[in-house]
């Protein structure tokens, strides 16, 4: 079982901070216009921040993926633990992509598509760009090898 690159924690924590700050700012603005005490939204935002940070760290610890003989296996989720088995035969195509935030921490993700209705859900974040393209190429190769004649 492989874990994600540790730096993904930075990305997730930053995301949680941004979210908490935005909510806090909206809350403070709202409190000021309504004339309510300002400390309520601030405490709320701080709580949100703490929860977000803890969630990000736990999320990193729970994430894992593995390429098995005939399938790709993923494990993730803090509140709801999700484990997914994607048979290699079912892989339609594989993407590796880098969002703006991901680029700033030098990471990339690999997205695996199947014909299933939840296909696009299979996304492995927190990979080094090289690992991501390697994974993409490897999965592509394995998928071609496994060759499902009727993918649908």
């Amino acid at each position, binding site marked *: 079982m492989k874990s994600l690159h540790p730096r993904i924690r930075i990305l997730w924590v930053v995301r949680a901070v941004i979210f908490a700050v935005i909510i806090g700012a909206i809350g403070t603005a709202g409190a000021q216009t309504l004339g309510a005490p300002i400390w309520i939204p601030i405490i709320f935002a701080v709580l949100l921040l703490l929860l977000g940070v803890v969630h990000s760290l736990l999320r990193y610890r729970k994430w894992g993926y593995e390429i098995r003989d*005939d*399938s790709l296996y993923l494990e993730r*989720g803090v*509140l*709801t*633990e*999700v*484990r*997914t*088995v*994607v*048979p290699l*035969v*079912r892989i339609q195509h594989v993407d590796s992509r880098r969002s703006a935030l991901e680029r700033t921490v030098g990471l990339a993700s690999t997205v695996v598509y*199947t*014909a*299933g*209705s*939840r*296909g696009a859900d*299979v996304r492995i974040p927190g990979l080094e760009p090289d690992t991501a393209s390697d994974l993409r190429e490897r999965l592509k190769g394995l998928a071609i090898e496994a060759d*499902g*004649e*009727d993918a*649908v």
Partner: protein
Amino acid sequence: MLFFISSTGAGGLGGSVLIVLGAVGVLAVTVGYELLYYQRFSYVLTDDTLDIHSGVVSRRDREIPYRRIQNVDVSQNIVQRALGIAAVNVETAGGSSTEAVIQYVTVDAAEQLQTDVRRLKRRERSDTATDEESKEAVAPDREELFSIEPSELALVGVFSFDPRVAGIILAVLSGSIPFVSPALPGDATGVVLFVLLAIIGVSIIALSWVVGAISAVVNFWGFTLTRTEDELQYERGLLQRYSGTIPFDKIQTITIEDNPLKRQFGYATLGVETAGYAPGQAGSRGSEAAVPLATIDRVHRLAHELEEFGIPEYTRPPKRIRIRYFIRYVMAIAVISAVAFAITWVYNITFPWYLPLIAVLLSPIAAHYKWLHRGYWLGDDHLAARSGFWTRQAKIVPYYRIQTVIDSRTIFQRRWDVGTVIADTAGSLSVLGNDAAAIDIDEQEVSTLREELNDRLQASLRKREQQKAQEREQRRLRAIEQQKAQAQGVDVAEPASFEWASPVDTDPESASPKPKPKPKSIDTDSLTPAITPIPSSEDQHQSDTDESTESDTNT
């Protein structure tokens, strides 16, 4: 338009002339556009694609490979029926939208197109099949599987309570309550209010029931299902006629649905889901139903006609989970009561807010049935999963249709040591979270079931691959035999010329076997490797069964 209207004020008569001119102009442009669209629209059936050329301003040429076509539907609305024309919808996998619409063709042309596409599709699939075979397939054996009876249609209407209508009305009403309440007589007591609410509630239910009944009857009027060699054809509709096909090899899941009422009278609903498209989705409601209502017996027979899955014996979730369901129901009721209480308190009205609490008495029964109806079953080739306390749904998925296997355990499920295993398929309905899922099974079972499903999927795919290879082999052998027969037919004619060519040979017996090898020798060389597999294909079959038993023992 605004410009014309404003100019009338200034120009008087001239203005109204302008309006007429403008209207005529718009009409002319529209008619011209439609005419051009009609003129520019063309479709061609090539050897392996259906080509559609269309567009007035921007031209669009689209080629759809037959292989990708899932369904070809023909639909007619009232106007189209009066004019004797029809619209042909071409559906492909990967998207719930229609890939191409060919409008304004005659009914005959539409049906011709339907059969042509079917034929070409079949020919492409069996690439080695001879022309004769594909010609035979043009007129397949039609067997009517199902035809709705008037009594059944009436029942469909009776059972078609549309909760969405009630929801819409309620949403509209709830928005207007703050405006209505001041209008009520000031001395309105709780009883008056309660009676008023009850009347409104009953009329909403009655209205949505009538709406549901009418739309269901209109939708399923004259519903028939016909079976041909490799597909299911359906036809239905009173105002708008729908007809279409569901190829057997595109069927993803089968759903058998019932509720206590239907069960009581011995009826059930059958749903068939294909990849990316559920038949008759264009309908406003209940559209995914392949058979809206039929006796349980007929539904089961039909379901087995589509997939031979046997009789499922469901494994239920652990019994302790009933307590969880009970708690959940009680919590939901508590929330509803609390909301009712809050409203009565805020608006200061005496309303029996504790009324929903009566339902607490019913929740143990509901919890029990919820548990009773939940379960999964691993058949030889199919996974069956059932769920639902009121509307009970059993989903049957062939293993080889599974796309991904997902297991999830929410924080609440973990407290009860249970989890959910979902078998995701490529159907469009599953977007609504309607996948076959074994919900709330024991934690230990979760992992085993997940791995088991993956293993069975792989085994099933291998089995299918072998079967396909065998079928191909058999088809090739048959083709060879035909060729051989033809070659022999040629042989009969040829010896005369051959004897003429070699009159030296006087032995009559050696003359006839001699020519035989010659025309055939060309063929036999290329065919020998193909002929030998006859015994090996049996071997293959054996090894195939071995494998499946092996995977069984592994479990």
